[in-house]
């Protein structure tokens, strides 16, 4: 066999214990499926028909079921026809047909034995020898009927619905629904555009009452805020207990909502989802390193969405991180390379900095990097600092942690500063020393990347004493205002690179949008600068740069860019 070259597997973990399996048939195909599957809390539970079908590559449509939520079984969308082994009551052995195959008794209504009876596949465990008919005419008919009832009171206002394009109701109507409806009665009108919370809008008419949002808020977010009020056709979702739906995870209900009932106020009427280019990236709000998908169109970022990664964030992310994208498109972004206030080209600026740094005496240079920068950039800065004999440090950023995702360390790459050697022990220890060095006149050149040092003990009066102040940042601040060499950088959505989370997960960023004006990814010009100063020719691609770093940094031993994957790898911290 001419199989493509597969990278050598990671050092083999101890072989997992053999999985107990059951034999079932899905659409006539015999499968061995594990006896148990993890539930929303990760505890093993008997495998359900839906999970068994999924093992066989058959997706059974569902609304209320979600891998990471408790099972409710109320939408009835996953109804399937099935059959079980016919048992001899006396011997407890399967009854066989004449040709030796076991006899199957199809599920039927107990009081009407000729009529097939479905079971909700999301909550019915499998039994040995079970047969699941996910495509049978009876199953199809059940799906059609369920969809028809779900749509009885649906307003069919897809044209003004933000969910359109990623709506399960639309998708299943196309795949499994029927064109017409038997219902001629007037539709029940429910409240529209209800202000459910500061970030959420609720449209009750569109709601199919799957209770995913209720279960998430109660069981995952731990804030029992939502519930269903009123009866029958007038069921509505409501923040009935506290009257407000305002925890830090509310926007996850928008992702969970299979229809357009819960929509984000931030994304409301902003862009149709089918225009969005989806780029895999990372949230930089804290040290957790949640995986996200950046939705952008023509260089404008419209939203972040969590990207499922069970090793880091599961399918969730916090509201603060999700809404933390607007600064990227701010009109006051730094877009010009400036030397002593004059606009110059990149080549001029980098050459100028390089020639000055070469002449600087050892110990007269200090370097303050940011733990918001990619590991590759920190590595380049460190090699620059090593050549110059410079003091290096980064700035700590602490906040309050919560029970779910938010970490106390608000820097996305603190471990990157540690592993590259920018801040070996604790970030911020060297800052007073640098301030003292400037005061004393021993440090005459300061290189600052991505931080406003005036807020961290090195005030403007100290900065004024410097001969050269190289600053690279994204947005203007008090430090960029006094820089002799100002280099506009790129935000994390505009470049590639890696971050290392507080738990030591090394993960990739992907470029979603272009940088404005002359702004450039830091690693690109740093690579040139390092070449000018140290004479070392690095790599012009991020892949090469990462592989070089991995070879030279013990913590990354054996890693290659190509092997990181979309969900990252663990490194020793």
């Amino acid at each position, binding site marked *: 066999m001419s199989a493509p070259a597969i990278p050598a597997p990671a050092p083999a973990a101890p072989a997992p214990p053999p999985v107990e399996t059951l034999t079932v048939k899905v659409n006539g195909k015999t499968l061995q499926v594990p006896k148990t599957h993890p539930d929303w809390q990760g505890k093993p539970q008997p495998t359900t028909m839906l999970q068994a079908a999924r093992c066989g590559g058959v997706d059974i449509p569902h609304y209320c079921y979600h891998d990471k939520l408790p099972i409710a079984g109320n939408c009835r969308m996953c109804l399937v026809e099935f059959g079980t082994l016919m048992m001899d009551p006396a011997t407890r052995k399967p009854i066989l047909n004449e040709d030796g195959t076991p006899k199957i008794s199809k599920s039927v209504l107990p009081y009407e034995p000729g009529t097939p009876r479905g079971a909700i596949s999301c909550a019915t465990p499998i039994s040995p020898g079970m047969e699941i008919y996910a495509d049978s005419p009876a199953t199809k008919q059940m799906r059609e009927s369920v969809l028809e009832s779900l749509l009885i009171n649906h*307003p069919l*206002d*897809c*044209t*003004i619905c933000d969910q*359109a394009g990623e709506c399960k109701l639309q998708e299943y109507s196309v795949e499994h629904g029927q064109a017409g409806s038997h219902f001629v009665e*007037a*539709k*029940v*009108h429910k409240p*529209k*555009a209800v202000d459910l919370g500061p970030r959420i809008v609720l449209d009750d008419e569109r709601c199919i009452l799957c209770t995913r949002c209720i279960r998430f808020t109660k069981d995952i977010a731990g804030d029992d805020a939502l519930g269903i009020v*009123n*009866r029958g056709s*007038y069921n509505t979702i409501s923040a009935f207990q506290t009257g407000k739906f305002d925890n830090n995870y509310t926007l996850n209900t928008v992702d969970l909502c299979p229809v357009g009932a819960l929509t984000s*106020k*931030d*994304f*409301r*009427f*902003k*862009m*149709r989802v*089918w*225009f969005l280019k989806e780029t895999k990236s990372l949230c930089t709000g804290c040290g957790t390193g949640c995986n996200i998908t950046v939705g952008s169109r023509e260089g404008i970022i419209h939203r972040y969405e969590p990207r499922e990664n069970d090793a880091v964030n599961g399918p969730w992310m916090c509201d603060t991180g999700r809404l933390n994208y607007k600064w990227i498109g701010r009109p006051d972004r730094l877009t010009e390379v400036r030397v002593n206030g004059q606009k110059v080209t990149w080549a001029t600026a980098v050459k100028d900095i390089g020639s000055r740094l070469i002449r600087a005496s050892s110990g007269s240079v200090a370097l303050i990097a940011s733990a918001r920068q990619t590991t590759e950039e920190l590595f380049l800065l460190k090699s620059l600092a090593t050549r110059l004999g410079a003091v290096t440090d980064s700035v700590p950023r602490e906040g309050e942690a919560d029970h779910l995702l938010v970490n106390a360390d608000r820097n996305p790459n603190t471990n990157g500063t540690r592993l590259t050697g920018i801040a070996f022990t604790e970030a911020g220890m060297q800052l007073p020393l640098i301030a003292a060095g400037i005061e004393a006149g021993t440090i005459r050149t300061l290189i600052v990347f991505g931080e406003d040092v005036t807020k961290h003990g090195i005030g403007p009066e100290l900065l004024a004493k410097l001969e050269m102040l190289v600053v690279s940042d994204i947005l203007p601040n008090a430090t960029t205002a006094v820089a002799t060499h100002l280099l506009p950088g790129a935000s994390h959505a505009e470049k590639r690179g890696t971050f290392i989370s507080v738990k030591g997960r090394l993960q990739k960023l992907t470029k979603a949008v272009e940088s404005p004006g002359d702004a450039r990814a830091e690693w690109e010009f740093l690579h040139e600068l390092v070449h000018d100063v140290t004479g070392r020719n690095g790599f012009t691609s991020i892949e090469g740069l990462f592989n070089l770093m991995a070879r030279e940094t013990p913590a990354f031993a054996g890693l290659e860019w190509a092997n990181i994957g979309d969900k990252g790898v663990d490194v020793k911290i």
Partner: protein
Amino acid sequence: MSTKVVARAPLTFYERTYLPTILSGLKVTAKHFTDTVFRGKTVTMEYPEERWVVPEGYRGAPYLVKDQEGAIKCVSCQLCEFVCPPKAIRITPPGADGAPADRTNAEKMPKEFEINMLRCIFCGMCQEVCPEEAIFLQKDYSLTGESRAEMIFDKAKLLKLGGTHGGVQKWKHKLEGAKAQEVFPV
């Protein structure tokens, strides 16, 4: 063998003098000449003064229309922008804090709606895809301008040129239905 060779009929001496060809040519040209000069039968149209009767179903320039009550019908669903093969349509959605829609229940309408008539190929896909019957290919076939910028028609211009198109007022019916059920039985 599917080809059959047919012998060319030999020409008579009279035909070989070219005279019959010349005479028939003269006959045809003379007929048309007299038709034009003495009977005034021409096949051409004196364009700017004489106008062509645009047939039903003609696909001219696409314009936005308003409903019977003068409200903008477009709800900014952006399906036309999506379907437009030459990417001539560009819609700026209202965003969360946009102006309220003319029709209460429709919730939104476009902040800006531009059609680049230089890119438009008059295929009619926007009209076909529009779920709100808000855009129609109308009978304008002579689109001229002095600059490229002038040929990008904005919302105001498109609505002015588009005029009114009645049809089912579904959002109004929804609103009326909702009002009828105002007494909310709990």
